């Protein structure tokens, strides 16, 4: 089994990739995907921690948390996609940089 630091590095790299996706991409659907990547980084961290407490045993608390949290991330994605439909109807494009009418 690799050491825990490898899994922690994986989770942090995923988090940074999610943030990069949210900052640089233009299409609204790609931003939603970036947010899902961000949440999954935390999930990987939880699961890796549950496996490394005592070698040969797993911790059920972290697994329960991840199971519930996957449902929550799904709900957020659903509401975001509903708003994407209306954004497209109003602006005619999914480009976030065009949706800048509110200023100041």
């Amino acid at each position, binding site marked *: 089994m690799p050491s825990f630091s490898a899994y922690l590095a994986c989770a942090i790299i995923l988090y940074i990739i999610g943030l990069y996706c949210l900052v640089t991409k233009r299409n609204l659907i790609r931003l939603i995907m970036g*947010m899902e990547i961000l949440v999954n980084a935390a999930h990987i961290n939880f699961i890796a921690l549950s496996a490394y407490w005592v070698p040969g045993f797993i911790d059920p*608390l972290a697994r329960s948390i991840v199971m519930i949290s996957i449902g929550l991330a799904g709900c*957020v994605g659903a*509401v*975001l996609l509903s*708003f994407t439909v209306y954004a497209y109807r109003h602006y005619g494009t999914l480009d976030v940089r065009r*949706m800048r009418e*509110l200023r100041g």
Partner: protein
Amino acid sequence: MFTPIIDSLLIFSIITPIIGFFTKKKSSCLICGVVSIGGYIVSMAYLLHLLPQIFRNPIRIPVKASLVSTSIIIDVPGSLMSLLALALGLFVTIYSIRFMERDSGTPLYYSLILAMITGIVGASYSGDLFTLFIFWELMCITSYVLVGFRRNVKESVEAAIKYMLMSGVGSATILFGMSLLYGLTGTLNLPRIALSLKAGEGGPWLYTSLGMLITGFGIKAAIVPLHVWVPDAYAAAPSPISAVIAGASTELAVFVICKLLFFIFPAIKVSWIEFFAAFAVLNMILGNIAGLLQSDVKRMLAYSSVAHIGYIFIGIAAGTKLGLTAALLHIFNHGLMKALAFLCIGAIIYRIGARNLEDLAGVGRKMPITSTAFTIAVLGLIGMPPLNGFISKLILFMSCLDSGMLWLGILLIIFSAVSTGYYIRILKALIAAPRNEKFNDVKEAPILILIPICCLAFLVILLGIWPDLILRFAEESSLWLMEVERYV
């Protein structure tokens, strides 16, 4: 299941759309509003009934406290926050019966407000980090839909998308910070984490976890580099929703930050005190200076909200028990005053349809009760003596003197004076002579809109003349929040 405080809100939230399905469209707004008012009244009655018992001992929901189970602890600091949330929910629902009568889908609207208040009440009572997260997500998801409720208006949809993206990032960051904290202590139960971390020294990973939690909750609490969603979302939401989000949701985020800092991380207090002093100064500067540049009243109130969060952070940066008392007191008072201000501007928008300062000129003579209430709200926000804003700012200043940060107290006074600049412009616009004839047939706001406004104005004056009611509550809360041993 849970206590009737949370249960009744959940049950009414499910009943309201069912009843709304069976009523005709014309009267569905009124009937569903009355049904959902019942939910708030049952919940608040039960909370007030339990209040003497809560002051002696907190009530735990799984009665046997264990390391791994869900934990809801009905205690004094949580009751302060949930009382604010229930009161605001009740007033906003009465207000919406008249305000949202021309919108469609109002049974769903009432159900979503009930769900949001459930989230706020549950999050303020939770004793476990993951329970806090689930109630937090409930509040967030329903608030996204409520901000964008008028989905045929372009600016609502844009504001809701901007708000959703930033707040979603906040939630994911909270989850990552929670996982690091779980990695250090092996449990997510708040009193147990506090006891485990008390003895240890802070390593760099504790700081990372603290940073992520503060960033995540700080996006909702309008800390300065992360506050950019605030003016857009507060301005584009329907006015009762602006009142609830400004008065309860943002305050809940600041309350949770207080709870985490003083409960779990007192070991590294020296580090975060400096950060929060810096955040307080940034918030005050940006909130007040940007407020001076606005001409839209709702955006002005949004920036003033950012400035008041800065004042609350002064109390946190003081770090003592008096500072925490001052912060909790200002959370409560600011919630009431800001909600009153948003409800008043909503009443004016209901009658006139415009919200820029030039269009408001002279409306005060036609709508006297609304303008008086607006004046009371604005004077409270400035910090004038017989109102409750003065009491909380005074105690904030005293806590600065107490902990040796006199420069923060002086900045508080200076920026309160600066903020007078834009508040007075609103008052001047209200009492000016009417410039055009289109205000001739503007009457006073309808009675159902006036009732919550008058009740809130009465509360603002009452808590200013007789602050002892809330001050004792806030002192007791800070006592409980700073001593972890009482919870175990």
